[in-house]
């Protein structure tokens, strides 16, 4: 006579040991990044539809990575045929052993609050809020989403996408990573619109280095 628990145990099959936890970790990181950005946008604009626009500007739309490959750019707005002057370049310090994901210069009056393989968060000195809270902060994030916003061509030939969402209080500047030196993806800086100038934002995002261990978030 078989005991039900024994039968169920047999039916469940044998489970092999897990040798690679990375796919689960990466999925978790991506979901967490989406959650953080969503919180920021909602905190900034309440439940206004402007928040949705802000999320779209950062490329956060919940799409499946495979369904929305990075290769295809969506229609964007060309603001001018003349090249935009590059901001004064300032060398990004070489990454140290402590660096993961993304490295860039920290603007005066800001400091790095935290970083992980997908995100670099900069906050005002003395800001004791959780690093999960992006409100009022500069957030550099590597994503696998297509760019959106106004397309501009810098003197160097590099293309940036600028989206200034005045009503939400947040803007974004995005640039493709340098291929093949950096992992493929779109580097997006989300910043409070009145916190830094557009030139500073472009400088931050174009000076940034995306390290080999960086992992793009999707959706």
């Amino acid at each position, binding site marked *: 006579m078989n005991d039900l628990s024994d039968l169920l145990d047999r039916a*469940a099959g*044998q489970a*092999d040991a*897990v040798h690679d936890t990375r796919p689960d970790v990466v999925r978790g990181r991506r979901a967490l990044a989406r959650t953080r950005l969503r919180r920021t946008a909602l905190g900034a604009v309440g439940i206004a539809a402007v928040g949705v626009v802000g999320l779209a500007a950062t490329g956060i739309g919940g799409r499946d990575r495979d369904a929305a490959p990075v290769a295809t750019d969506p229609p964007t707005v060309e603001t001018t045929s003349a090249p935009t002057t590059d901001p004064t370049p300032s060398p990004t310090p070489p990454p140290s052993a402590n660096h993961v994901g993304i490295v860039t210069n920290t603007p005066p009056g800001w400091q790095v609050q935290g970083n*992980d393989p997908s995100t670099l968060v900069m906050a005002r000195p003395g800001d004791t809020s959780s690093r999960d809270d992006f409100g009022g902060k500069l957030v550099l994030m590597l994503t696998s989403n297509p760019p959106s916003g106004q397309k501009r061509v810098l003197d160097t030939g590099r293309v940036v996408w600028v989206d200034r969402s005045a009503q939400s209080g947040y803007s974004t500047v995005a640039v493709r990573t340098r291929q093949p030196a950096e992992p493929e993806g779109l580097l997006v800086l989300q910043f409070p619109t009145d916190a830094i100038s557009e030139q500073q934002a472009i400088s931050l995002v174009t000076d940034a280095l995306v390290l080999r261990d960086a992992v793009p978030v999707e959706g």
Partner: protein
Amino acid sequence: MRSIDRDTEFAEFVTAQRPTLLRLARLLTAGDPAYAEDLVQTTLTRLYVHWPRVRRAGNPVGYARTALTHAFVDEQRRAHRRREHLTETPRETTAPATDPDLADVVLGALRGLPPRQRAVVVLRHWLDLDTTETARALGCTTGTVKSQNAKALAHLRATLDLTLEDQR
């Protein structure tokens, strides 16, 4: 909590518990490997996002079991489950059952149960949760657990020709 800490702790949890979660999912899905993998991925992703809260609660295994069961029940409530949500090819981390014929029979019997009854059977008789714990995991009353368990055992008795305890 630092991201690296979260990653390390979560990876350790995955290493230790993923096989058991996959077996649980296999029973809940009555042997659908793709659906089972999908449930496990969904559960682990939620766990990662809420990891600080999970740590504070002090019972990540229980949290994961409950989250997986909820994911299964929620999914079953939807009229049409869309398989294209699966993010990658299911891993081959569940080896075939040691007795394939018997396993097929049992899985077939489970397949004949409504999802909630199936969940009650698996939680009560495989995980050995008591009525209160099962009710908590399923978000229902203990009375519901008892009645669902009795109906499920009646079905399994008829299908498997077993002598089972009606209530434990």
